[in-house]
């Protein structure tokens, strides 16, 4: 028993000290009928057997280090410097709990404070929290927050938002009896918005990778008494106007792109930032700077009266465990990249995706569906089913794009393929993809 240190002799000694004679006595309050039912689990493996087995299983998956991947849609194969993992795998970070005892947690607390600041700088917002589960649930919480602030029970969301974001939003809204309305964010007049709308939600770039002109949107939304929520891709903010510059009230992002591996969809990290005036309505944990008894700078968790462990059923959210370690990875990534690095990544994504789009557009039967300008993703009309394409590509070591045929986000169009290009997609990979596509044509 490698993780239970006490020997049989010690267990006996301890039982004696407790005043019991056998392990069975520990269960004296448990009705006997409930004890020790049959539980079927696989037999135990020793560590070397375990590692071999897990490696074998893992290699049944086609991974992005051995295949060229052109899938995006909310999970991105961005580059993560080696230093990121080295930092997040520090024992003192990853085996600590939530920093409830500040004297023993200054490392995590200062890092959260830095994370909050970096997210504010990235988004142009005033305050950010220590992370939410992911972008989708953060969006759900943001809508709930907007509803609480405006005391309105309807939210508007642009149809070209990530379908899973919309689905999760609906679940959260449903809990609070909020109605979700899909309509294009292309709002010309504030009067187009009914006066019971709590917020308008747009994703930038949208699900099809398109960058929209959001100038002036906030003004109209605010004029209707509603709040503006922008869902952003943090990498795109190496180039694009920030939610802050667009006067968004809440900014929501998926932090995964910031140095976190795709790992089949999680754990990721919801970025959540807002304006100072809404600070006390925010969900989630917050670290603040303060002083210790001797006047030295230090950090604590603060504004905890918003949270479940203090406020219980009146809390702004029920969130407890968040995505601390992922936020740490993102913190390290943001520091390593700096402003120039993020810009470089964004520019490479922009240029390489356009290069690939141009090449694909040149193939017979293919047509780019996303409107210019797009950022790193674009939808393509394909001559045959994208799912079939993907099946073929997989055999060439290419993980193709997402089949979004007939989805509402493309208004039911058939044969639409959503491709993504990041700084990790090399020219050689694109050539492989292109020549495979040409091969299919023949």
């Amino acid at each position, binding site marked *: 028993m490698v993780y239970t240190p006490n020997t049989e002799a010690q267990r006996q000694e*301890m*039982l004696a000290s407790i005043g019991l004679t056998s392990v069975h006595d*520990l269960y004296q309050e448990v009705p006997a009928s*409930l*004890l*020790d039912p049959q*539980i079927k*689990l*696989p037999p*135990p493996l020793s*560590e070397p057997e*375990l590692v071999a087995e*897990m*490696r074998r299983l*893992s290699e049944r998956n*086609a991974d992005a*280090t051995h295949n060229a991947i052109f899938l995006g849609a909310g999970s991105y194969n961005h580059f993560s410097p080696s230093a990121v993992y080295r930092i997040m795998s520090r*024992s003192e*970070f*990853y085996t600590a709990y939530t*920093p409830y005892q*500040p*004297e*023993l947690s200054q*490392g995590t607390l200062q890092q959260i404070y830095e994370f909050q*600041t*970096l997210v504010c*700088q990235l988004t142009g917002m005033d305050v*950010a929290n220590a992370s939410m589960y992911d972008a989708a*649930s953060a969006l759900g919480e943001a809508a709930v927050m907007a509803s609480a602030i405006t005391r309105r029970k309807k939210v508007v969301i642009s149809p070209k938002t990530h379908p899973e974001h919309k689905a999760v939003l609906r*679940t*959260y809204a449903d*809990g609070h009896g909020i109605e979700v309305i899909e309509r294009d964010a292309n709002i010309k007049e504030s009067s187009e918005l009914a006066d019971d709308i709590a917020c308008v939600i747009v994703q930038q770039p949208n699900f099809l990778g398109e960058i929209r002109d959001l100038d002036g949107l906030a003004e109209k939304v605010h004029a209707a008494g509603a709040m503006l929520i922008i869902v952003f891709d943090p990498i795109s903010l190496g180039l694009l106007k920030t939610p802050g510059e667009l006067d968004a009230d809440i900014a929501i992002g998926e932090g995964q792109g910031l140095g976190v591996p795709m*790992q*089949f969809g*999680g*754990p990721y990290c919801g970025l959540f930032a807002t304006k100072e005036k809404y600070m006390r309505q925010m969900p989630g*944990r917050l670290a*603040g*700077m*303060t002083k210790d008894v001797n006047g030295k700078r230090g950090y604590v968790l603060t504004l905890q009266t918003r949270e479940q*462990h203090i*406020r219980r*059923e009146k809390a702004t959210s*029920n*969130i*407890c*465990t968040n995505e*601390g*370690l*992922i936020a*740490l990875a993102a913190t390290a990534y943001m520091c*390593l990249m*700096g402003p120039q*690095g993020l810009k470089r990544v964004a*520019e490479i994504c922009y240029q390489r995706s356009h290069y690939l789009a*141009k090449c694909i557009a040149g193939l017979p039967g293919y047509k780019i569906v996303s409107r210019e*300008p797009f950022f790193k993703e674009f939808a393509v009309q394909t001559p045959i089913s994208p799912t079939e394409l993907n099946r073929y590509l*997989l055999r060439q070591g290419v993980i193709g794009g997402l089949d979004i045929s007939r989805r509402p986000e493309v208004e039911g169009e058939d044969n639409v393929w959503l491709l993504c290009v990041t*700084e990790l997609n090399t020219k050689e990979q694109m050539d492989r993809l292109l020549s495979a596509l040409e091969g299919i044509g023949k």
Partner: protein
Amino acid sequence: MSLEPLIFEKGCPGRVGFSLPQVDMDEAPPLDPKYLREGLDWPEVAENEVMRHFVRLSQKNYSIDTGFYPLGSCTMKYNPKVHEDVAIMPGWAHIHPYQPQESIQGALQVQYELQEMLAEISGMDAVTLQPAAGAQGEFTGILMIRAYHRSRGDSARDVILVPDSAHGTNPATTAEAGFKMISLKSGPDGSVDLDALASALSERVAGMMLTVPNTLGLFEPNILKISEMVHKAGGLMYGDGANLNALVGHIRPGDLGFDVMHINLHKTFTTPHGGGGPGSGPVACRELLAPFMPGPVVAREGDKYVLVEPAQTIGRVKNFWGNFGMHVRAYTYIRHLGLAGLQRVSEDAIINANYIRANLQDTYFLPYNRVCMHEVVLSARNIKQETGIRTLDVAKRLIDYGMHPPTVYFPLIVEEALMIEPTETESKETLDTFISAMKDIAREAHEDPDMVHSAPHTTELGRLDEVSAAREPNLRWRSTQPREEAAPVAEARAS
């Protein structure tokens, strides 16, 4: 150790810490300036500086890998290193959730088998791995209960019962899911008061949230009766599985009458807490609730694994398929230990907690004098009465003894609570050290209360001013803020 400046106080304009390709294949028209942001004021630091910064910060943390961490309700057990090696295998770390299913059969197999194993362990019929943490599992489970009632046209049920000993996420969840909460006062032995329960039950009750063992670390002896009463009233039983570490391998929540529960993989199944997350909160349920689970879940068709959507799903609570990285670790753990190993886990967790109880109950007040399960709740009430020293002081003083304090002031129903969960991965020697420290502190409280009241004395920082932190929140750095006088050098200098 010295104060570490903020990363914003380091670096130099133009410095670079990244190594990236040049911008190439660059024939696309430049983006219209109207789309472009103003400058980004992130720090500009070298990799060397970033590493040093975080290595130094990390050393300011206490962690499981530095010592004993008996935080009640949090199950701070040792996180096996092999889990981390497994989790970074490229076949787990670098796969995309939307890959063609034939290219991710290994991942789906792990998820499928983990669903099955958790169902076995919990005594339930179906499992979804989607929720990101315990609280989201609660949210999921309560929405499933709501959907169940609605599906039967039973939509007047708008109340959830929650004992007053419950964790804060339970009441918060009831609100998040649109329910009214009725709080049940606990009985004198810390258990559910059956009379109080009886009078709270009505046709408005959708269900009851119950933690077993409860947050006092006590088994609910009337659990079968409670389930029966709730069921009879048409309600369903939600199990908060945060304390599964007390039961695993020996007792199945499904057998206790629960209809749905969450399981904190980051507690019982030792996925690391990460300084606040990620967690993973799979929800297990009986057949009658299975159609309402968030989707997709993994099913087996012949020798293939496929993602399927439950028929009457409540929808999604999270993107993609849950915190897969945590699923891999939990799966690895279960395959490592097997049933006998898991049984040993709960046994030793219980022995360890009772050993602390037995050895400290003469020094600290024991509000409920029963055999406890995986944790024990003591109280510094007696010490406070005699010396004015409170639980907070005891906790802070424990830091000077090189240990992390227990959970304090929770559960709320115990005055001056000290909630101690040693977990099974701690040795008797460590417990003995803890016990003797706790006794020393009790003595110190009498002999030198000022010293205890001003603890900790051995940390870089003393107690922090939380009041002004909340009154005038400083939640982010601005370059206009005063820099800290105490640069590392000055700090390290002897006075």
